[in-house]
């Protein structure tokens, strides 16, 4: 019992003494990339700032920001981000970096998308072949991106047959499902490279600029929530847009592949 109390106090203490700590909601795809594991210790070392990550979908990240439950969000869904700022929930939107989406599918590629000319073409191929396709279906940034790609290709996902499976899950869970069904899926490159349960799946299509995925940093508006740690949020923003962050982000690789391109504009 004494031991337990000791440990309990210890846990309490660690939770309480984290003076300089802020909460940031990030997308599952960002977290799954593993970049956070590189950046957070450096932020801790440089700024003495503990960034607590809430790993959620873009939709939930925006809600957390609206409610003032986090101090900043880092997401990738431009239209939703701009609405977030326009409605006054965030002070501004700062682009940090981008990575890209890739289309993954069974290695024998029944829809023959690996030699498609562009993203439109490859999605057309999947829809024509009616081969299983897993959609995130969770209103996340990746999901919204996928929907917009279908529409760009002149297709309506709501009219698809049962080859189109909306799983309503995070990136990893959706990849697991795709792996189990041996289905096509749109994933961000980082999540895909870090995913360990690839099974028979392979990267089949990438490189079309339309698949680029811009990450932006949005501090939550302290005018709406006075407990929001906006000073810490702006210190983090300065760091994320610094040379130091640029080197770390551009230098992050998995299997010798670069995942993120730093593109923050310094004022």
């Amino acid at each position: 019992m004494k031991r337990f109390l000791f440990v309990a106090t210890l846990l309490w203490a660690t939770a309480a003494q984290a003076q300089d700590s802020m909460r940031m909601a990030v997308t599952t795809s960002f977290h799954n990339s593993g970049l956070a594991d590189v950046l957070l210790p450096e932020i801790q070392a440089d700024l003495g700032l503990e960034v607590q990550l809430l790993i959620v979908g873009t939709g939930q990240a925006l809600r957390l920001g609206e409610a003032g439950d986090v101090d900043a969000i880092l997401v990738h869904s431009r239209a939703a981000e701009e609405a977030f700022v326009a409605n006054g929930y965030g002070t501004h939107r700062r682009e940090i970096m981008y990575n890209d989406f890739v289309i993954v599918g069974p290695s024998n590629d029944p829809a023959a998308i690996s030699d498609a000319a562009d993203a439109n073409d490859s999605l057309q191929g999947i829809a024509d072949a009616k081969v299983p396709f897993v959609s995130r279906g969770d209103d996340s940034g990746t999901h919204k991106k996928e929907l917009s790609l279908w529409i760009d290709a002149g297709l309506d996902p709501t009219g698809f047959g049962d080859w189109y499976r909306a799983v309503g899950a995070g990136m990893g869970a959706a990849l697991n499902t795709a792996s189990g069904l041996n289905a096509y899926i749109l994933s961000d490159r980082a999540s895909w490279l870090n995913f360990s349960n690839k099974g028979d799946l392979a990267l089949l299509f990438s490189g079309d600029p339309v698949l680029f995925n811009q990450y932006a940093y949005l501090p939550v508006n302290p005018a709406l929530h006075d407990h929001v740690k906006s000073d810490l949020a702006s210190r983090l923003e300065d760091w994320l847009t610094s040379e130091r962050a640029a080197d770390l982000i551009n230098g992050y690789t998995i299997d010798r592949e670069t995942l993120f391109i730093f593109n923050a504009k310094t004022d």
Partner: protein
Amino acid sequence: MVDLWDGLTQAFWLVLTGDPELAEIALRSLYVTLTALAIACVIAFPLAAFLAVRRFRFRRLIIAILNALMGLPPVVVGLIVYVLLSRSGPLGVLGLLFTPTAMIIAQVIIIVPLIASIAHQSLRDLWQEYHDLLISMNVSQRQKMRTLIWDARRALLTAALAGFGRGIGEVGAIMIVGGNIDNVTRVLTTAIALETGKGAFALALALGFVLIALTIAINLTIHWLGQTEREGRW
């Protein structure tokens, strides 16, 4: 099958090497659930005893509600607690969201109906046995409840263990109100969900095996403590 084996070996090594991160989340799991359990018992046992000894108008209704709440989906509890504790919710000023305390609150809500329902069944049976004697002795309501709780302590221990099992293995509520923040609110179950999401099945399974082992260890310990009161003697 390969994953299962990998998971087992990985669990073995994690435990053997005393992986500090594993130790931290395992201890946090225990801290959250044992604290929630202690609070839940303090609420549920007297409630169960009260329902056993008192006859009042809505007694049956309350028992029926408690029984129904036993199957309360943790996700729903999590959402409700989230909405209450959110900065824009009624209890937002407390700043409890995404802390272990929020997880404890959610778990208390989840396990109180379970413990109270199981406890009520054994206390009700014991009350039938004791009724005539305690009435004849003019025992006060309070004393009746205390007597029942003390004399049914073994059955109540079983109820508490059921509550512990539900709490320690629960992920839906604490994921929402805790946020699965590394070093702050990550516990075994949320870590398992996270690793599964990354497709790291072996590590997820390893954590799962650690969770199972922990649960069994706690159960055995508590049973063993109960056994130290020797049979036939009290």
